[in-house]
């Protein structure tokens, strides 16, 4: 399939919407808001894996005891013996053995029969429906993630606007990260270094503009150029901070997820990532091709999960797979399957409540086209992840998903706002108030990459006290040497998108 027609966005786009929309005047501060709330701890991340083309759900999670299944697919069915058994009636495709391991560890949930009313079988249209979270007959121009970030992000005050709010690993920007209210909420790039280089190419420009009205215009443009470059630097820095600790499959998806793992563990505070893999439009001879697609998916995602564990950030991350539709129950004349409707999807992570949500597909009662009738609306899954993983409050759901949807029991350890794990502690400095110096103690419960930074009340960075990969243990740092003016300072400990802030007072 070819998505040119719906290609809305191109290449590298930068912009945390909140910043770019408030660009009335220059200069723009590093932080959009002063640091006011201390002891904020969040940092949950959602990683989306888009399977483009329409993944064949029935051959992914197989109802091997259902004779309707075997009858409908005489030459492409997966036998009971081959399926990796999840229950007495249900098994995973044999290529998904690494998903089976995650399932056995209770870290993988299968949500059955996910779809929506009046399903559309066009790749483009159905993809738009999934990305926009619209009803089938509604045409919405922006994405559910974009709307969430613009309208319902739980901690807009403390989000470090030096970091992009969402990242898509890939060349063209998805409508997913767009909000019509604020524009692009995310950025997209294929590789942090490449991104850095591309942006970098247009920077060598410290030529001061002339002191004319045209020169004033030029000065503004140069500042914006510099800002877009700032993300490239922060992304590159995050990627350079840590190294992947496992070997990923040498595939596009494997490489994408390897980048995401480095960015999360390397200190980027970005809460949403989108990765994608194509080729699921299996109209013919699908047995081998589908097996390869699933193997790549499972091995890439499980490497990612394993990597996150070794990098000490697995508690923060949930992965969701999705595809624009499942495929026709009955195989077609060329040993493949045509476009269908509802299908299972996977939700994976340390804090996921593993298991099977929903019933086996009802192959007796298909719709007029011979397709599966949905059991769960895809927006129920979104609602669950937004609330339980990303901490969106329930009263914002209509802003993001247009209506209210019942959530599903998918997340075991819910968003930190309701009591999530804290892997470090930053203690109040002593003495406080202080002059000229004060001591700041912190402890790390697990090895992690941290940054300890002092800011002034405008959010400008005063000094980085410490930065790097640290083993578990207790640490201390000193701030103040007589050079700083009296006033309030904030010290923040950052680990990934977790952060904790204390307020310090220098009184001379």
């Amino acid at each position, binding site marked *: 399939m070819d998505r*040119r*027609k719906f*290609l*809305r*966005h*191109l*290449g*590298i*786009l*930068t*912009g*945390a919407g909140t*910043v*770019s*929309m408030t*660009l009335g005047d220059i200069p723009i501060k590093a932080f959009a808001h002063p640091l006011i709330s201390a002891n904020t701890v969040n940092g949950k991340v959602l990683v989306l894996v888009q399977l483009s083309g329409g993944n064949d759900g029935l051959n992914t999670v197989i109802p091997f005891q259902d004779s309707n299944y075997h009858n409908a697919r005489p030459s492409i069915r997966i036998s009971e013996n081959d399926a990796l058994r999840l229950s007495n009636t249900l098994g995973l495709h044999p290529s998904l053995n690494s998903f089976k391991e995650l399932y056995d560890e209770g870290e993988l949930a299968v949500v059955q029969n996910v779809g929506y009313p009046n399903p559309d079988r066009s790749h483009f249209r159905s993809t738009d429906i999934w990305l926009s979270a619209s009803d089938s007959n509604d*045409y919405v121009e922006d994405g559910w993630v974009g709307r969430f970030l613009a309208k319902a992000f739980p901690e807009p005050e403390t989000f470090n606007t030096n970091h992009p709010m969402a990242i898509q690993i890939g*060349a*063209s920007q998805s409508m997913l990260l767009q909000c019509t209210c604020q*524009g*692009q909420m995310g950025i997209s790039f294929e590789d942090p270094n490449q991104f850095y280089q591309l*942006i970098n*190419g*247009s920077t*060598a*420009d410290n*030529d001061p503009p*002339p002191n*004319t*009205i*045209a020169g004033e*215009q*030029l000065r*503004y*443009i*140069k500042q*914006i*150029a510099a*800002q*877009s470059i700032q*993300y490239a630097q922060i992304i590159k820095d995050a990627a350079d901070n840590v190294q992947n600790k496992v070997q990923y499959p040498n595939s596009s998806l494997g490489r994408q997820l390897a980048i995401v793992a480095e960015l999360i563990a390397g200190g980027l505070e970005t809460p949403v990532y989108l990765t994608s893999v194509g080729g699921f439009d299996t109209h013919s001879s699908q047995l081998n091709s589908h097996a390869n697609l699933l193997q790549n998916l499972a091995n890439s995602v499980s490497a990612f999960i394993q990597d996150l564990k070794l990098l000490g950030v697995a508690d923060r991350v949930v992965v969701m797979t999705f595809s624009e539709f499942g495929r026709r129950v009955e195989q077609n004349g060329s040993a493949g399957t045509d476009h269908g409707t509802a299908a299972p999807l996977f939700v994976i992570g340390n804090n996921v409540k593993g298991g099977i949500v929903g019933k086996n597909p009802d192959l007796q009662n298909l719709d007029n086209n011979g397709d599966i009738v949905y059991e769960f609306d895809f927006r129920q899954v979104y609602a669950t992840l937004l609330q339980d993983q990303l901490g969106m409050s329930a009263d914002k759901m209509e802003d993001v998903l247009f209506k209210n949807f019942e959530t599903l029991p998918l997340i075991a350890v819910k968003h930190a706002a309701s009591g999530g794990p804290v892997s470090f502690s930053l203690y109040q400095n002593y003495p406080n108030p202080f002059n000229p110096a004060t001591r700041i103690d912190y402890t790390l419960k697990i090895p992690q990459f941290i940054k300890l930074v002092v800011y002034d009340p405008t959010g400008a960075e005063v000094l980085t006290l410490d930065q790097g990969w640290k083993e578990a243990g207790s640490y201390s740092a000193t701030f103040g040497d007589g050079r700083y003016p009296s006033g309030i300072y904030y010290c923040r400990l950052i680990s990934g998108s977790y952060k904790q802030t204390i307020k310090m007072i220098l009184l001379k």
Partner: protein
Amino acid sequence: MKSGYNLNKITDWDEKAVVHILSRTVFGYTQQDIDFALSISLDEFVDNHLLASAPEPDPPFWVYDSSSDNSTERTRELTYWWYNQMIRQGYSFREKMVLFWHNHFVSEVDKVALPQRMYWQNKLFRGYVFGNMREMTKKVTIDPAMLIYLDGNKNRQGAPNENYARELMELFTMGIGNYTETDIQEVARALTGWRVDGVTSYFDEERFDDGEKTILGETGNFGYEDVVDIIFRQQATAKFLCRELYREFIYITPDENFVNQLADLLRQNDYELKPVLSALLKSTYFHSEEIRGAKIKNPVEFIIQVMRQFNVTTPDFNYMRQVAEQLEQKLFDPPNVSGWDGDKRWINTTTFPARNIFTDSVVEGEKPNGSELTFQINLVNYARTFPDSESAEALVDDVAKIFIQFPLSEKRRNYLLDTLLDGAEVYDWSTFDPQAENRLRLFFKVLMRLSEYQLS
């Protein structure tokens, strides 16, 4: 800015003046365009070319019907159709002015519902493009798209709708502060009775408020033409309109002294725009050094001028539309009734890199996703259209003249030269060198990534 009377005509019709006038009036130009303008006089060029009336382009075939079929596709087709006018406009100021009017008398296709109606509104703008602003405003007032967009079609006796009345005075003619809320109510009454049927409007006498109205101090049983006549008798109106022209074609912050000079001229000419534009484009003020390169290109201008600069006559309209939307300018769909804010608002951390990626893609001949554009530019052949293409320094200067209006500093110019040479010595440069194409590719990418390239 200089004070005193600035509408005096410039005395030097030189390359600098040509470049400036072209950069503000057409969507991109070439060396051939400069040569042509210099081959005739300033008066000839402005009055017989830029401001000349030109035949109207044929519309898409579907503009006559009032079916709502394929509206999304038709809006796109209409967008491509307009892009095509911009690209093929020759030496005419018309299409930039039509865009000005679109951003002045705003309607949004979403509410207007039929792209057909947007076409007819666009045609109305084109017909009056340098014409009489008062008569144009009358036509706009009963234009089907506008009647729907600002609810004029719902405005009737006993149930007035003030939407259009308010915007007519606030955004289209006088500006806020020059009328009262009562004036708005009275204008709304005078505008009652107009309805829309398909792509045409008609007057429904039964819905007209047939009583006396008092508008801006005048009393009578006024209708829509009277309303516009009254508004155009106000001093504020000519100033407001000239301020808008100033912001679009000179600089974003109006100079009231010069605006007043333009407004006087507009009133002296009974709101005929052509003599005002003619004087403006020839004026010492317009050609003053400070104005050069002081305007941030809007996205459509940005995208179209790239095509014109490279002589691309069959561009990739679909891609251009996608990019324009990315750059936040979707024709026929301004963000709200006040139109696009323009200027600095065009450039943000999202759109600036996107502009760079777009110009890169034109040079590379492929979109960022790797798929090919519908056209490819042969950079070596293009470079050879410049007379001194075998001299690296001359080539840099000549190309910069077409692409960059902002006065380039010596440092920038040397940076461009270094980029083109890519380590080679200046005497080694030749378009016949096997590396020439690669060097030109990098050179044009870097050139169009300059912040200066955003300015016109």
